[in-house]
Structure formats: structure tokens, C-alpha cells
């Protein structure tokens, strides 16, 4: 049984029409999305901005309500769990965001910020136990016990992100949803945080849903990767295999856009035309067809389903899936 199981999750936002328009339109932020995360597994979620990554992360933690579909955690359907009961489950899944500045209350010391979740979930009951627990948490993310008395502004961005991670770990979650956790950090500091997440996953068995636009980091950190386009998963599989031999043309284009130190060794770059279409009126057929370099007639009218094309490898494309099957 997977730790987290999403079945046909859908999140739609009604938005006001423009100045002269009438009624409302609907943003199809997440469409018919199914995904699992096993206990202790790291799954990457990649795709261009606006494809629905943050919405998915927030919906699966019930920070926003999904329009339809099912969320199961440890086999339990939590999709419609009332708020009171949800709170007791929240201990098991935590989310960290891109901006380590906005995520900490500037008026609380680091120790007070860390004590909060401990109190809410009744974890360490005496002040002595709590202080001990906070010291352990700070050390586990590479900070000092005496940092507990300082305020967020006294720390650098990388240190703050580690404090945010320490706070998420306070309740010993089984799943950490990380939304672009290193994007705002300096290059030389990103590696510190990536290594910390890697240790948590490998040594403590914390499962990660790692949302990122950086495919190289996902390939490095994650066992599996899901590639999203306009609210849907278009490719899913083992991270290294997908990065080495993408099946879906969108994955191939995304990979080929990543700058490399060794540009001379790369095959001819696939440059995608234009921007992703609006999720307000997603294209008919395959959502990628307007930008796809190998689209065919069928792609414009019929939407390809996400199919298992090899054990563990899934792709939603009429053309490439057949080719990958043929090649193997």
C-alpha cells in the first residue's frame, strides 16, 4: 500500500471574466491526476510554471479543496475528512515552500517557532523535554542548539530554509511536500539543502514529493519523476531512466532545454515554440499538440491517456509510447 495515493484528482478555480465579459471561466489547474508516493520514496514533480505543481501540492495536503478525486494517506481516504480529524493526520505530512523568508514569523525566536508544532500536537509535554527536542531538531539540520534564541533575520537564506525544514520535522512526518525549496537560494548553498533532504529521505525514511523546475536536481535526488503539462501527468517513471531516455516529446524538449556545461556534446536542441497554452481553455486532444514537434492529426482531436508502456514507465502520447516500446 502506498503512503500517498492520488486518484483522478482535479482542482479547478473559477475566475472572473475580463472587464467586458460575462460570468465566470474556469482554470483547469489539476486535471484527472493520479500519482502514488511509497513510504520513504522521493518523487519529483516537474513542469513549466503554471502547470499546476503548487496547486497539486496544496490540494493533496487539503490546504485547498480538490474539486473531485480521491486522496488516500496510509490507505485512509482523507479527501472529505472534517477539519478536526484532519488536524490529527496533519502530523504525518508537512509542506515546505520556496520562500524561507515568508515562512517564519519574524517576531518569534527560532525556538518559539519550533515549539509551536510540538505544542499543537502534544509531542513534548514538559519545557525541559521541549528544549531537548528543539536542540536535537536544530542539530539534525546542521544548526546549533543555541540558535534557538535567535530571530529569523539573523540567519541567511540557506539557514532559514533549514529552520523551516527543522520545523516541518518537529512532528516526525512521513511525507514532506517540498515546493521549490532551493530555488531562492544561492547556488553554493542549494547543495547544502539538497544534501539535507537526501539524508532525511535515506536515513530517516521520510518520503519526499519534491516539486522543482530543475530537472538536474530531481534526477539527483528522486527515485521517480512525474512530468506535468497543463495540469496532467504526461510522463512518469524512474528518474534516471526518464532523464536518460525520455518517452514523451514534452519531456524530451524539457530535458533538451536544460543548459549543460558541455554544450558541444549535446545533440541538436529541441526548442519548443511559444509558451504553454492557458489552462483556462486547454487545447483539445493532446494538451501538448500545439507545441509538439511530432504531432499528428489524431493528436489534435483525441487525448492520449497515461499508459504503462513498460513496467514502471508511463507516458501519455500517441506516437512516442509506441516507439519506446519498439526500441526496448
Amino acid at each position, binding site marked *: 500500500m502506498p503512503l500517498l495515493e492520488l486518484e483522478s484528482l482535479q482542482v479547478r478555480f473559477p475566475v472572473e471574466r475580463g472587464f467586458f465579459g460575462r460570468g465566470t471561466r474556469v482554470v483547469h489547474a489539476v486535471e484527472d491526476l493520479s500519482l502514488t508516493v511509497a513510504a520513504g520514496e522521493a518523487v519529483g514533480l516537474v513542469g*513549466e510554471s503554471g502547470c499546476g505543481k503548487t496547486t497539486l501540492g496544496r490540494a493533496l495536503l487539503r490546504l485547498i479543496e480538490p474539486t473531485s478525486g480521491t486522496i488516500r494517506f496510509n490507505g485512509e481516504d482523507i479527501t472529505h475528512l472534517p477539519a478536526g480529524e484532519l488536524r490529527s493526520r496533519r502530523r504525518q505530512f508537512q509542506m515546505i515552500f520556496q520562500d524561507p523568508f515568508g515562512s517564519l514569523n519574524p517576531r518569534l525566536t527560532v525556538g518559539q517557532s519550533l515549539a509551536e508544532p510540538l505544542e499543537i500536537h502534544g509531542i513534548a509535554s514538559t519545557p525541559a523535554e521541549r528544549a531537548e527536542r528543539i536542540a536535537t531538531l536544530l542539530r539534525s539540520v546542521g544548526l546549533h542548539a543555541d540558535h534557538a534564541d535567535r530571530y529569523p533575520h539573523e540567519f541567511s537564506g*540557506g539557514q532559514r530554509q533549514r529552520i523551516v525544514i527543522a520545523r516541518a520535522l518537529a512532528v516526525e512526518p512521513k511525507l514532506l511536500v517540498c515546493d521549490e525549496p532551493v530555488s531562492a537560494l544561492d547556488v553554493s*548553498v542549494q*547543495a547544502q539543502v539538497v544534501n539535507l533532504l537526501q539524508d532525511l529521505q535515506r536515513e530517516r525514511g521520510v518520503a519526499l514529493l519534491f516539486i522543482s523546475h530543475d530537472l538536474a536536481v530531481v534526477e539527483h535526488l528522486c527515485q521517480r519523476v512525474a512530468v506535468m503539462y497543463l495540469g496532467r501527468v504526461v510522463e512518469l517513471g524512474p528518474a534516471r531512466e526518464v532523464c536518460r531516455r525520455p518517452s514523451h516529446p514534452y519531456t524530451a524538449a524539457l530535458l533538451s532545454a536544460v543548459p*549543460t556545461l558541455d554544450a558541444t556534446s549535446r545533440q541538436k536542441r529541441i526548442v519548443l515554440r511559444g*509558451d504553454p497554452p492557458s489552462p483556462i481553455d486547454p487545447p483539445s486532444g493532446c494538451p501538448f499538440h500545439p507545441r509538439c514537434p511530432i504531432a499528428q492529426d489524431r493528436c489534435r482531436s483525441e487525448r492520449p491517456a497515461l499508459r504503462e508502456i513498460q513496467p514502471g514507465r508511463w507516458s501519455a502520447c500517441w506516437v512516442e509510447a509506441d516507439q519506446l516500446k519498439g526500441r526496448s
Partner: protein
Amino acid sequence: MPLLSIHDLEVEFRLNDRWVRAVDGVSFSIEPGETLCLVGESGCGKSVTALSIGRLLPEPPARYSGGRIEVEGHDILSMSPRELQRIRGGVVSYVFQEPAAALNPVFRVGSQILETLQIHRPAKATQAEVVRLLGDVGIPDPERRARSYPHELSGGMQQRVMIAMAIATEPRLLIADEPTTALDVTIQAQILELLKDLKQRLGMAILLITHNLGLVGEIADRVAVMYAGQIVETAPVGSLLHAPAHPYTRALIQSVPELGHPRERLIAIPGTVPMPGTWPAGCRFAPRCPVVQDDCRTLAPSLKSIAGNRSVRCPHSAPGSTASS
């Protein structure tokens, strides 16, 4: 004669009654048609260096406390406002990270380009030239797009408009400060292809500023690496990436994962980037350097030329592959 040459540039900012140095003795030059990438982490002084070339920093709080900047042999720091006007947007054009902030939201993009033409190339200030420029930077349906307002365009299209405006004056040097940082990788790839193509067709030199070492391999001829207000290494792109000489360059390359070459673990650089006013004595990288020696903490190294048209600010460095260290 180099198109641009900078010698020992020092830039300071007034902060609470004292001057804090942000750029400290930067020297480099760019030949006509050459692409130089200036690389470094946030706060190391890349943008301040770039803005100094067109003398675009507000004075005060900024002041040029030392050094020289020459564009086509003319001394920028002693120019009159009139002469500066001729250089900016004439010989030298800029593209910045946030096109939305640089474009005027209340005017159509076409009329903004037309205005640039009227100032710098009045003979060519026509609607046809505007449409040609928009087409040149890969904007589909340029006649229609010329009538768009900035907010009607995506981030990638806005950046293309900025580039069209920058090349409208036929500059000999295009300074692009993090032009793709706010964009998705797919759009970044489009903009990089466009810059490479324009460089070929127009023969202009490019100073590309980035914190992303990955871009360097895509477009640079030569690279200058900055740390804490100083250049720590300059080299042709191939040798810099494959045999970095300065420990900081080497550490920077090792700290980022590379697609297709997964490693067991990233080699993080301990500590954080020091901000202006808090630079350590001796070598500024010493507190974070994996190969630090005793004398590094007291003796400030100078930038020395080494073989292969390179220079490095570290007495203990030797060009080496990142794999072997």
C-alpha cells in the same frame, strides 16, 4: 583596441554615514564580437559592475572611488552627460532580468521601440523598422504584436521586446543582466538561441551576466568569475569549465548537479556568501575554501596571469579537473 576595458574599478555605496565597497578592483576587457560571461552568486557585484559601464548607478548613493572604464577608448567616468547619452543606448544597450519592470505599461510596445529609434537612429524611425525588429527577435505576427501592451505578452515575449529595443540602436555591446533568470527553462532556451543568432548576424559583443554556470557553456567565449566584489578567475570557456583553476570556481561547478551525470552526493560549499562590508581579510574565499592554507587568511592574493590566456586570484591554485579533486 578592445571594445570595452575596465581597470581596477571600485564602486562604493553610502550606508549609514560610511562608504561600503561593493566592487573592489575589477578588471576585464571585451573584444568586438566577443561574448563574455560574468558569473557569480548574488551580491558579489555583477549588476553594479554592469551598470557602471553605462554609468547608470544613481550618484549618490553610489560613487566611483577608483579605476577606469573605457568604451571604444573613451573614458566613461570622466564623460559629460551629453557624451554619456551617446554611449548608452547607442554603442552600449542593456537587457535586464525583469522586462515587465523595464517596459512602460501604458504604451504599446511598438511605440516604445519607435521612441528608442527616434532618439538614437532618427533616420530609421519608422513603423516598418519597428515591425522588422520585432520579427528579427522571433515575435510571431509582428504587425499585430506591435500594437500590444506589455501586460498582454508572456514573460518570454516581453523579453524579446526588450531585446528588440536593445538592438534597435545597433549597439556594439549588448549587456544582458540575468536575462533569463525569471523565465522557464524552455523559454530560457529560446532566448539563448535568439542571443546566439543575433550575435552571429549583427556581430555585436555580449556581456552576459548570470548566476547560472550552466548558461556559460551555452554561449560564452570567455568567462569571468566574481566573488565578494572581485574577479577571482578569467579563462576561455572550455578551460574554465573543464579545468577550473580557482578553488571557488571548482567548488561552484561541483556543487550543482549536472543532468545526465548523476552523482551519489553533491559537494556543498560550507558557509554563506559574504556581503559587502563583511569581507574577510586575506583571501575572501578562505573561510569556505576546501584547500585553504595558513597564509590565505592573512595575505590578500592578487589576480595573476597564468598560461592559456587565463588569470587567477589564488597562489595555491593549479588548473585541475573537477573530477579529480
